[in-house]
């Protein structure tokens, strides 16, 4: 059992009437890996995670967590697995501590002091006896992590943990996940934030309309990223366009120019424009490379998934 993949989901499909929410996706996550499932809203990420937790049943395919399936092991499938789907929810009329006490009862009990430990991990010790109804969104997210840690998981599944958090909250959440991952925990993280996934994950599946648009390592994803794009405004756009040389420059439909290329190419082109006596009125980075790739992968027509070499896990459609 210890050699099993943390997640072994093969050809998993879920339909709602005519809508195919998840279309034959395969996700394999090795133990100790930090894995991202990336995609825009409605891509099927949450549906997939709900199937992992047994909240909804797949119409086709198989799901095994540490070698156990819902069909064979029932609730035992979630042994060593914890996390939350969408934003974590609690009973608002109970304190954080009483919520955790109750949830620990549903896990067969927790060792003495464990609830205080997990509250300390997520920095909620001072508010532990306050009713959850008065908590901010970020505090509930952190309480969700605490409730997950209460199960002493080997696999932590987090559905958009940074969703709804302010920048400081997102920073803290990422740091917390990074620390948990550093402790040897397997983390499966869903997100629509490319930066979040790039910062935390080793490997990633990008989903689009229920299907896999890319699977592979973060390095492979970076390698496929297009060149960055700059929006440029000058005193004489037609003449600036004629100076493009080897740099890819085109007119922008809303006015001005778009320059695509490496930072050095953009720098050379801008120097040439200014050197030709054309005034530079605006220069703005409009698309970071990974962000641009995300849009390419998730907004393009569905086609076969792009892939990269995967040393520890396989993902495929």
């Amino acid at each position, binding site marked *: 059992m210890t050699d099993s993949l943390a997640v072994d989901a093969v050809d998993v499909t879920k339909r709602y009437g005519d809508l195919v929410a998840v279309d034959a996706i395969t996700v394999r996550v090795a133990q100790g890996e930090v894995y991202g499932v990336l995609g825009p809203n409605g891509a099927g990420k949450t549906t997939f995670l709900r199937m992992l937790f047994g*909240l*909804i049943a797949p119409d086709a395919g198989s799901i095994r967590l540490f070698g156990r399936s819902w069909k064979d092991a029932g609730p035992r499938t979630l042994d060593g697995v914890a996390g939350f789907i969408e934003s974590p*929810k609690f009973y608002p009329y109970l304190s954080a501590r009483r919520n955790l006490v109750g949830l620990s009862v549903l896990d067969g009990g927790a060792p003495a002091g464990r609830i205080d430990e997990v509250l300390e991990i997520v920095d909620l010790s001072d508010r532990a006896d306050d009713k959850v109804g008065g908590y901010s969104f970020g505090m509930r997210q952190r309480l969700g992590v605490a409730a997950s840690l209460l199960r002493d998981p080997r696999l932590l599944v987090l559905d958009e943990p940074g969703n709804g958090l302010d920048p400081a909250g997102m920073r803290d959440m990422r740091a917390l996940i990074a620390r948990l991952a550093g402790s040897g925990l397997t983390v499966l993280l869903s997100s629509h934030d490319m930066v979040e996934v790039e910062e935390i994950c080793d490997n990633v599946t990008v989903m689009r309309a229920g299907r896999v648009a890319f699977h592979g390592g973060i390095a492979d994803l970076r390698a496929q990223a297009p060149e960055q794009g700059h929006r440029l405004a000058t005193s004489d756009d037609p003449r600036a366009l004629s100076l493009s040389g080897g740099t890819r420059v085109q007119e922008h439909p809303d006015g001005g120019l778009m320059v695509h290329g490496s930072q050095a190419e953009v720098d050379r082109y801008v120097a040439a424009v200014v050197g030709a006596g054309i005034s530079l009125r605006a220069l703005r980075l409009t698309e970071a490379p990974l962000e641009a790739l995300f849009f390419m992968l998730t907004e393009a027509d569905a086609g076969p998934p792009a892939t990269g070499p995967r040393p520890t896990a396989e993902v495929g459609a």
Partner: protein
Amino acid sequence: MSTATETLGPGAAAAGIRPLPTLLDAVGWEVRKLSAQIRARAVLLLMVIAPPLIVVIVNGQGRPPKDTLFGRYVHDSGYAMPLLILGFASQWVLPMLTAIVAGDIFAAEDHHGTWKTLLTRSASRGQVFWAKAITSIAFAIVAVVLLAASTIGSSVLIVGHQQLTGLGGQLIPSGTAAWLVGLSWATALAPMIGFTCLALLLSIWTRNPAFGIAAPVVIGLTMQLVGTLGGIEALRPLLLTTPFESWHGLLAQERFYGPLTSGLVASAVWSIGCLAAGYLIMRRRDFTGG
């Protein structure tokens, strides 16, 4: 924040096999949640406080409510008032009492979005279902027992423990009357459990707390209305409200127990049917929200 490696604890390194919770654990959690809700506590408190007030008010009125069952005897015997209140409570109070908890207990998880919190732990769907059902039924029983005890106790204390005039005009000695009045209230438990199971089904089926609470009351009133119609003799024993009247036979000149038996059967059929349907919904449901 302390570091995760420090605080994940020894359990994090373990193989991940956890002790599964028992049904008793799950029931304990439901009871804790229920006891933390002001509404549930208020209902139980009302069951204790309201009867003495009603007894004082009715006893203080010059003319007794003669047009209701045992109403004409409320000044004569402390055992008449509990039967008057039982007859009134059966109309809509008892269904509402149980629906306040049972009609909400599943739908509240949808309302709070906590199904995913519950069902991503180690408890099975079956355990969660039965824990909620047992808690709701226990609440209904406690509520009826409190209401009965408070009603009988306060009435006997305020009016007295005189002999009771039965439905056939016979005089029932005080000791026998006390036993029969207690038994009459006990007969309300079976249909009360039936209404609890109906409310549970509506709660899990509609996922709407308001509907889960209001619908059993409306259904109960509708059944009572249907029960008053002529030409439905075959249907009447099947109505869940009919068993609420089965105690009448205990107070007749010649006691008869047929309605008690058929009331128990009807209540059991309703209870088992509703629980079975609710259980199937729970087992098969895709928890896409909540």
